[in-house]
C-alpha cells in the first residue's frame, strides 16, 4: 500500500518544528527584535500561493475574483518581504562591537 503524500508533508512539518525550536533557542536575546522582523519576512513566502492564484485566470479573463484576490495578496506579501528584510538589514547594521583600544 502506498503512503499518502500528506504523511510526507506532515513529517516535514513536524521535523521543521523541532528544527525551529532548537534554532530559535540559540538566537541571542539581543537579536529578538530582528528575529521577529525576519520571521515576518520569510513567512511571506506565502506569496508563492498568491502568485499561483493571480495567474489562475485565463488570458481572456485575467480579472476573475480569485485572481484579483491573488493580486492583492501579492501586494501584501511583497510589502512584508521587502519591508521585513530591509528593516532587518537596517537593524542588524546597527549592532556593532566595542572598538578596541580607543
Amino acid at each position: 500500500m502506498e503512503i499518502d503524500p500528506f504523511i510526507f508533508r506532515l513529517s516535514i512539518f513536524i521535523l521543521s518544528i523541532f528544527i525551529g525550536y532548537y534554532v530559535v533557542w540559540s538566537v541571542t536575546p539581543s537579536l529578538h527584535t530582528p528575529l521577529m522582523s525576519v520571521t515576518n519576512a520569510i513567512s511571506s513566502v506565502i506569496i508563492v500561493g498568491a502568485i499561483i492564484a493571480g495567474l489562475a485566470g485565463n488570458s481572456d479573463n485575467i480579472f476573475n475574483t480569485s485572481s484579483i484576490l491573488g493580486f492583492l495578496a501579492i501586494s501584501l506579501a511583497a510589502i512584508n518581504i521587502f519591508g521585513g528584510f530591509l528593516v532587518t538589514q537596517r537593524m542588524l547594521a546597527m549592532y556593532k562591537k566595542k572598538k578596541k583600544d580607543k
Partner: protein
Amino acid sequence: MISANLSAIFYLISGVLFILALRGLSSPETSRQGNFFGILGMVIAITVTFLSIGSFSSGFIYVLIFLLIGGLIGAFIAYKIPMTAMPELVAGFHSLVGLAAVLVATSAFLNPEAFNLGSPGNIKLGSLIEMSIGAAVGAITFSGSIIAFLKLQGMMSGSPITFKGQHPLNALILISIVIVTYFLCSTQSTSLFWILLAISFLIGFLLIIPIGGADMPVVISMLNSYSGWAAAGIGFTLENTALIITGALVGSSGAILSYIMCKGMNRSFFNVILGGFGATQQSATSGDKEQRPVKSGNAEDAAFLMKNASSVIIVPGYGMAVAQAQHALREMVDTLKKNDIKVSYAIHPVAGRMPGHMNVLLAEANVPYDEVFELEEINNDFANADVAFVIGANDVTNPAAKSDPQSPIYGMPVLDVEKCKSVLFVKRSLSPGYAGIDNDLFYKENTLMLFADAKKMTEEITKNLD
C-alpha cells in the same frame, strides 16, 4: 516550465536557506549573512513559482506590477520607520501575513482548479480542511494584529477592555469555529466559508482587546506564532515544502518568544491571554497609602553622584523609548567613560513593548552590543556597582517581586537595583507602573528621584558632567 519534482527540490532549498537565516541570528556577527540567506531563499522560491507555471499569459505583467507596488511600499516603510516604532511595525506586518493567508485560502476555495485541488463544490477533503485552518488562523492573526497595532500606536487605549461574560463568549466563538469548519468540510458550502472567516475575524479582535499595553511583548510574539501556523496551513493546501518549513519555523519561533516573555513576567501564558491584568490592581492599591517622603534631586546632584562613581549600570525601560532618550543616554555614557567610569547596560526580558526592543534602540544609538547584558548575566553586578541609573523602567526593578508574596508581581524576576550603593530614578512622576503597584525603591534611603522627561534630564546631566 520545470517539472514538479525539480521545483519541489528548489522549494526545499529555499526552506533550508530560511533555517540558515534564523541560525545566523545566534550572534550579531553572523546575522547579516543570515539575512542574506533569507533573501536568497525568497528569490529562489518566487523564481521557481514563475518557472513552474510557465505559461506567461498577460496576467504575468499584473503579477509583476502588484509585486512592485508592494515592494516599493515595503521598502519605503523599512527606510522611514523610526526604531522606536518597531513594535507597531511588526504588529502591522503580522496583520498583512494574516490577510494574505486569508486571501490565498479564499482564492483557492473559489478556484480550486488553479491549485489542482478539485473543482468548486468538490474540493478534496484534506485540502479543504487545511485551507479552512489556514483561513481561520490567518483571519485571527489579521484582526488580532490590527488591535495590537492600534494599541501600540496609541490610537486605541492601551488599558485592557473587559466586559462581563467575555470568556464564555470567546469560548463559544472558538467552539463555533470548530463546528462551522466541520460543516464547511462536509457540505462545501460557500456561505459557510464566509461565516468561518467572519467569526475568525471577530475572535481575533475579541482575544486581543482585554490585553493591556505592557503585555504586548507576549501578544506580538503570539501573533508572530499564529502567522506562522497560518502560513503552514496554506503550505499544506498548496503542497509546498518551502511554505510548510517556514510556517513551522515561524510558528515555533513565536511560541518560544511568548514563553520567554511570560517567564520574564512570571505569569502563565493563559494568565496573559485571558487579560485584564493591571486594571484591577490599580484600584486596590491606590488610596490606602499616604504619601511617603521621597528624595528628589536635579541633574546636578545626579552628575555629582555619577562622577564620583567607579561603575554605573544603566537600566532602560519603555519610558526611554517613549522619550526617544537613547541617543542622549549614549552621549551621557560617553562622557562618563571619558572620566574612566565603567558603564554597562542591564536589560530585563520584558523591558519595552516587544522582545529585544531595548537592544535595538541602544544599537541604534551606537551602543556596542558587548556592553549590553541580559538579566542573568548582570544581576550579581549590582551589589558591586556604585550607581544604578534607571531610565524609564519601573516594575522590572521592584523589590516587592522578591519580598512581598501579596504583590501581584511576586515571583517575577527583577533586576537587583536596590543593591547598588545609590539609585538614580528618572521618571516623570511618582505614578505607579503598569502593574499599578507602588515601588518601594522610590522611598529608599539611597534612592534619588529625578522627576523629568528622560531625554531632557539625561541631556542636563551630561552638561553637568563636563
